[in-house]
């Protein structure tokens, strides 16, 4: 599974770096390093919806505060 996080200007300011850190921590915690790959991407063209995160081609709009929920609801669910 590949998760792509936008690191363009606008998403960067809205917290891409923090989201990446949270995801990295959760991936390590759940021992999923072999199953989940994190990727960066420049502008995905959806700046209004930032921070843009893509999972299996689907676009999600995250904030650092909603990242853990996203991980539970989407990442863990899909892997289950």
């Amino acid at each position: 599974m590949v998760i792509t996080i936008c690191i363009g200007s606008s998403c960067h300011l809205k917290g891409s770096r923090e989201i990446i850190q949270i995801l990295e921590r959760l991936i390590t915690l759940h021992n999923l390093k072999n199953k989940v790959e994190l990727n960066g991407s420049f502008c995905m063209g959806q700046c209004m919806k930032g921070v843009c995160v893509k999972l299996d081609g689907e676009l999600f709009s995250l904030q650092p505060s909603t990242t853990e929920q996203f991980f539970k609801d989407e990442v863990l669910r899909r892997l289950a």
Partner: protein
Amino acid sequence: MGSGVKANILATLTSKILGTMLLNGASIEQCVETIVKTLPVCKVRQVAYSTFSILQIFKNGDAYLVEFDNPSCVFVRDGKLQKIPYEEKVIEGKTIKECRFHAELNDCFVLMSDGVIFAGVGKVLNFGWTWNSMADYTVNATRVTLSASRLAAMLSKACDDLYMQSPGDDTTVAVARIINSKAVNIFTGPPMSKEDDARMMRDFMRGPAKRIVSGGTSANIVARILHKQIKTSLNYTDPVLPPVATIDGMDLVTEGVLTLTRALQLMKQYVEEDIDESFFSELDKDNGGSKIAKMIIEDCTELHFFVGKAINEAHQNPGLPFDLSIRQNLVAQMVDYAKKMGKDVTIQYY
């Protein structure tokens, strides 16, 4: 000895007179005569001049070196110290040393005041740094860097250390190096109209140059037209700036406005402040802003901006902690500072 105030005023007048006259084609005889006849005579020391070194290098490589009472210019060619075949000439009772020669690629010249070769005298060193030791140090340093300003910073740092941070004399170093012209092209911002993507890209790719792409959408355009992948990384070498990326064939790919803001800060500091070694360690850092500034400052004689004027709606958002809609303003300031550094700058909007 005096406070240095009078000396400083005389030195300023001398350099201004010399600079203005030589630039307008006056001979060294006329210059020295003017200095001797116009500068006020110091009541205490009965002198009306300050020491000077002049190095003129013309576009065709012809060079003219003139010195009066300063330590000789250190001249490094092909990694070796060169002896300068001076001719002496007496003007208005002053002995002037001069030399005409042809400068070659990678030549390095260091002009200095005597505070340099006396650095550390009576403290760390019995006789100070001495011309020979200073020249050896310079030869070694030219192997480390090709940059004139970096070399000047290294030499003045060495003097400062020898003086143990309290210089006993005016310590001035000026460095000139001969390099080929080097172009840097910067693509930043998508054009107002998508139809201009290809035209902007064509202009950006023209001629030999280092190529920087600054901006997420800009990187997408470049990658699309070149049929290449953008390889991003998540390695935050600087917490405030998004990581850099790579595209085959590009020398540097970065985020846009935040990174340019950092680059501009460094350029501004370089032009407006006294820079030392700590500035260069900032410039050597592995982040997009430092990389852009370093390329412009140290690896560029002509700078070409290709600037798209499209406006990103999301960047107009007053809720963001930083105004992202300032690209053109940033570019205008970068152009300004690059010109002050003596670079030839062009700018094209799309």
